[in-house]
């Protein structure tokens, strides 16, 4: 039998093991989800991805249902959409708020976007709210559980993606609460502050405290993003730098980064603000006759830098000059460092910082 199913009247192929949701997404069907993160095992918690399956008595969650040959699937019927709207009304009613700053995290606007799409205003069903926010002194991760919808994405990303198992759930049903072992601070748990929970949270319940601190007013638009590579170790994780008015306000992991597939560590996620630290060198410095370093113009500093090499070369010969390239600067810098030594002095007196 061929690997084909019918989705909304169109016959499509699927690969062994693919879920209905994966097949549908590949064919650009818009199926709403809240508990789904493509990097994680399917969970089937939020039920928003339900679809009609011919021959099945009830709608099925497309994220947990594997495609099998001959299935006939309808993703967007009036009944399904009505179910989805009711589910969303219930979810929204439990939360303190839905409109959160996009600085809270990569996925923090997912619930608000669906609320808008389904025109849910939060008044049809109203009543108790769930989740108790947790005071946690740590400077990185806000634990605002009044916005939590118990989708378990944070718990699952910590376990499945990071392998750290730092957080889990206590209680059941309406009283479900995300917490750490012994309900303590993250610092006292197995948490490594990689920030993955922040970035997968679809409501901003877990949020980037550092990014929220970086802007005074509540940001309603996502800052500019620039794709680059993390400045720390050699793994080469892809990240997006978030900027607002020429200020770096946060980092998002690149979910399609070939080396990291959305993962980051505490350094890549949170240790970016050295860049705009007041200690940065802003002008060239020249050592004066009194032995102290003083600010100088580029002209003077470059002249003095060049003159020193010219003088040492003349007095001691070309084998008296050595270059050390950086393992932190881009390759263009390393390339020109070696070219400077080889072209300028005809020696191989060049190295980089890999020996120590």
């Amino acid at each position: 039998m061929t690997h084909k199913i019918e989705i909304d009247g169109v016959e499509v192929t699927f690969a062994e093991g693919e879920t209905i949701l994966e097949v549908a997404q590949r064919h650009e069907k818009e199926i709403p989800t809240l508990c789904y993160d493509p990097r994680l095992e399917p969970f089937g918690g939020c039920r928003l991805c339900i679809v009609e399956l011919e021959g099945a008595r009830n709608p099925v969650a497309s994220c947990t249902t594997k495609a099998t040959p001959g299935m006939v699937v309808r993703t967007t019927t009036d009944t399904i959409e009505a179910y989805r709207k009711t589910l969303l009304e219930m979810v929204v009613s439990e939360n303190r708020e839905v409109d959160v700053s996009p600085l809270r995290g990569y996925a923090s606007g997912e619930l608000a976007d669906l609320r808008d799409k389904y025109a849910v205003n939060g008044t049809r069903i109203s009543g108790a709210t769930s989740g108790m926010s947790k005071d946690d002194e740590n400077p990185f991760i806000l634990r605002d559980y009044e916005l939590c919808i118990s989708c378990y994405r944070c718990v699952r990303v910590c376990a499945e993606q990071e392998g750290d198992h730092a957080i889990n759930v206590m209680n059941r049903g309406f009283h479900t609460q995300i917490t750490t072992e012994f309900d303590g601070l993250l610092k006292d748990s197995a948490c490594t502050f990689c920030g993955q929970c922040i970035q997968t949270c679809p409501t901003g319940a877990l949020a980037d405290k550092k990014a929220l601190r970086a802007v005074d007013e509540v940001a309603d638009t996502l800052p500019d993003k620039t794709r680059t590579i993390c400045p720390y170790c050699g793994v080469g994780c892809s990240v997006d730098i978030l900027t607002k008015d020429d200020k770096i306000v946060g980092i998002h992991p690149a979910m399609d980064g070939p080396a990291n597939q959305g993962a980051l560590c505490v350094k890549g996620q949170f240790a970016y603000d050295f860049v705009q630290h007041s200690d940065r060198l802003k002008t060239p410095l020249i050592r004066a006759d009194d032995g102290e370093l003083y600010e100088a113009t580029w002209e003077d500093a470059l002249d003095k830098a060049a003159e020193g090499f010219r003088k040492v070369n003349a007095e001691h010969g070309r084998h008296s000059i050595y270059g050390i390239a950086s393992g932190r600067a881009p390759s263009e810098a390393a390339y020109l460092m070696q070219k400077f030594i080889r072209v300028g002095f005809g020696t191989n007196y060049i190295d980089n910082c890999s020996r120590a």
Partner: protein
Amino acid sequence: MSNPLVDMQKPDVIFCIGTNMTECHPVAATGLKKAVARGAKLIVADPRRIGLADMSHLYLPLRVGSDTALLLGMAHVIAREGLIDDEFIENRTTGFDEFFEHISQWTPEWAETITEVPAKDIETAAMWYGSASKGAIYYTLGITEHICGVENVQSLCNLALMTGNIGREGTGINPMRGQNNIQGAGDSGALPNNYPGFQSVTDPAHQMKFKAEYGIEVDLEKGITKVTALELCGDSIHAMLIDGENTLLSDPDREHCEHALRALEHLVVIDIFLTETAELADVVLPATAWGETDGVCTNTERRVQRMRAAVPPPGEAKSDWWIICQIAQRLGFDGFDFDTPKPIFNELCRISPIYAGLDWERIENSEYQWPVPHKEHPGTPRLHEETFVNGRGIFSNVHYRDPAETISENFPVWLTTGRRLQSYHTRTQTGRAQGIDYLLPEESLEVNPADIERWNLSDGEWCKMSSARGSINIKVKATNRSPRGTVFASFSFADVPVNLLTGSGYDPITHTAELKVCPVKLEPL
């Protein structure tokens, strides 16, 4: 790395030695954790009971600096048990008969006397790795920062060659690089023995090529390494240009290093902060930082990727490449008239066979892992699939050697050094990132609780730690991560300059310092 990062999820048996990956390469470690969750066996060899050891199925707590002995013992068992891959050895390698003869003497019982790892555990590790259909080796500086770093790496190659665990998915010999562009710095030719693209400076064909390219005859012999250059400062080396390295804190034997840099007539440092090293310079030139610079970097799996500027630099800071061009132009050197980084990278690609298929535009989406020998080439995620660069894989008949210094009456404790999750190198960056102090406010010396008592130290109190080169004061922290007789500290904190103590010796071939082994004594303060 011989294999791509995605392969880390695929082995059946993973052998990690001298790598504290969950702290130093945390994102790479997530791949290993997934493999273990899937059912792969994890063997971890490390003197310290690091995070990886806690999740391993077999932990080999070897004495610092005894890696070669452990690996010889494992090779012995693999051969003795007939777990070798005859076909691979026949088709892809050379020198196995001599190697087989060589390792017959290095029994696991002998290895136990050197490594202090029980012979039966060495046997188990060998049996697991030798029986794997996909066995992968991961290592970091715990292998290379020894006087025998070359022998350690050769020993790992021996294991992979004799079992055929190379050139296939989920296998390989995989060193994890420590800095965002340390791979790229080597690729770019910032090495005393290689032109760009690892073209040897002693090969006449490369000499002719670069003579034509650069219009000057470069020395036909290798240059000296940084280590040698620092030793010769004030003697025959009189001027240095240092780009973005805090040599003073990162290198061993700080006093020697400071003395060396002070002895220079002319020191020019390009950096983003006034580092301890920049403070010694005659001219300090302010560079643009990450996030302010357009350029290219290459990661540990040889993936060539674009870094992009997101914000303007502070004050008058300029890109490293611009600064180097300006100095070169003032000296009348040819070939430094660049206005943007793009033609610089394209020049590097044009003259480097491993980058020949790349250019500034082609790396836009991080798709390529070198070698990319021509424009139609898809890149090389996995090395050595069909052949080795030099034809056949060579077995090395290595011998175990003691570290440069071993513990003695005067210095009875092994100090080993490394890094921590929350800090990076000399903290010029993480030390200036808000919040990091909450997780790691200060350095401390990790000491086994039983040793604390034995040596009259107190947990949380300061002690004096001395080596043959100097002494520092450091706070004591009780932890079972350190085995008895071995202590650990990172070199990240300027107020606890651990590299005042290190520097006992260097690998004679790579000149990598033995930062992982330093006999010390500890005294209460």
